[in-house]
């Protein structure tokens, strides 16, 4: 809990059990637009949920059946990344720190870079894919 930046606590946190792994999880810099946007979205989507950077928001049980896809589509549109099936690892998304880390890592990889030849580059080149998927 000590390494949590004070600004990252949207709501008072009383339940330390929800802390994922403060030791090994990435610690975002104090001022982080990715983190701020994510926190703002989550504070709205999961009212009453502790949103310290290492709080596991899935584990707190406030997510409904729409939330997982809302998070995916928020991340995709807000940060201009494509969440692929290869990215489906709950460890990428269970805390603010991890989701922000995921976004940063995705942005760091050029869309046509190695390891993405099986779809994402192709997908993001075709604007219709996104529409097809969600519409």
């Amino acid at each position, binding site marked *: 809990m000590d390494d949590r930046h004070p600004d990252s606590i949207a709501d008072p946190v009383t339940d330390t059990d929800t802390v994922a792994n403060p030791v090994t999880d990435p610690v975002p810099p104090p001022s982080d637009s990715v983190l701020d946007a994510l926190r703002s979205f989550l504070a709205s989507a999961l*009212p009453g949920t502790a949103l310290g950077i290492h709080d596991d928001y899935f584990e707190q049980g406030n997510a409904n059946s729409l939330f997982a896809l*809302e998070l995916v589509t*928020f991340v995709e*549109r807000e940060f201009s990344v494509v969440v692929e099936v290869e990215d489906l690892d709950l460890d990428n998304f269970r805390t603010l720190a991890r989701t922000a880390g995921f976004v940063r890592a995705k942005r760091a990889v050029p869309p046509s870079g190695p390891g993405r030849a099986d779809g994402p580059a192709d997908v993001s080149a075709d604007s219709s894919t996104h529409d*097809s998927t969600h*519409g």
Partner: protein
Amino acid sequence: MAEADGALFAGSVRPHAASWDRAGELPSGIVRDLARAGLLACDLPTRYGGSASPPLVLGRLCAELGGVCSALRSLVTVQGMVAASVLRWGTEGQRARWLPALAGGDLLAGFAATEDGAGTELSAVASTVRRDAAGLVLDGRKRWVTFGGRAGVLLVLARLDGHPTTVLVEADRPGVTTEPVHGLLGLRAAHVAHVGFDAVRVPEENLLAPPGFGLSHVAATALDHGRYTVAWGCAGMAAACVDHASAHAAGRRQGEVLLSDHQVVRARLGRAVVATAAARELCARAAASRQDGGPEALLDTVIAKYAAARAAATVSQDALQLMGAVGCTADSPVERFFRDARITQLIEGAEQVAEVRIGEHALRGHAGRPTGERAVDDRAAAADGPGR
């Protein structure tokens, strides 16, 4: 454009819809016919055989079909649900393998999620997938699978080591059995069936998304897409009911008085027109959200489906009331729409679950949770009943 093709296709099958409903089946060549007209999974990218149709075009197509035959619209719905799930959560290899077959009509898809003990509460599915040296083994019994009696491939929701998991299962694999459901209230030509899986061997490459994401991501994608096309189909159904009721009222004379000369008849038609227009506008709003690609699209689609299914149910009931005995005969489209519309209030999220979701969203941005636990605590806004 799929929309114009949809109108043409709908017009061409209009004379047959009543007999399909009576026979409880669609003609065997209908999947190919739909594919040839470019109406199956038309929202897929062109490289997978689709037309890259935007959400609004897909929606209007479903409204055209829904205004003629809900079983036909259901076929387009389930094909679209499975295609959307594979597009969204398939590997490139899976997309290349399944999507052209779905768009081309070589393969009809079904979505097998509901079980005896898991309808609205899909997180309770008890079907299991286990791994052994040779691949995957699936066991379970699925209920109310739309086109379950005809589908060549089924997207099945089960559990692997307890984790919700989705797997694509070809229907001709040993151990797959289907039991047709007859005498349903509505969607009688949609080949609804219960499907059993007894130690069905499935190759590992048929697993769609990693275990643990089958419900929250894959099934949720399928259901979201299904809600969207069901919504538009309902809007089309409501519009068709208004049309039939208006034509009847304008031409039907009782004694010396036209039915349409009664104020109460005009008022009821007016109410139906407004409900239909409102449903269509909410569908169009969902289309715009989906085009935009943001998180709002999920709830906007729930709202559209909720409103359109309600509109179809109330407007078809009003139309039936206006048409009297004529509307109640077996050959009346309105009688069929009335039965089909009722089913749409159950599928892809029962009305009550949708209300809870929409209400929850209204509470967002207000501090804290509402007191007490959620009345409906589900993981996927799906429902009992046929239509998936």
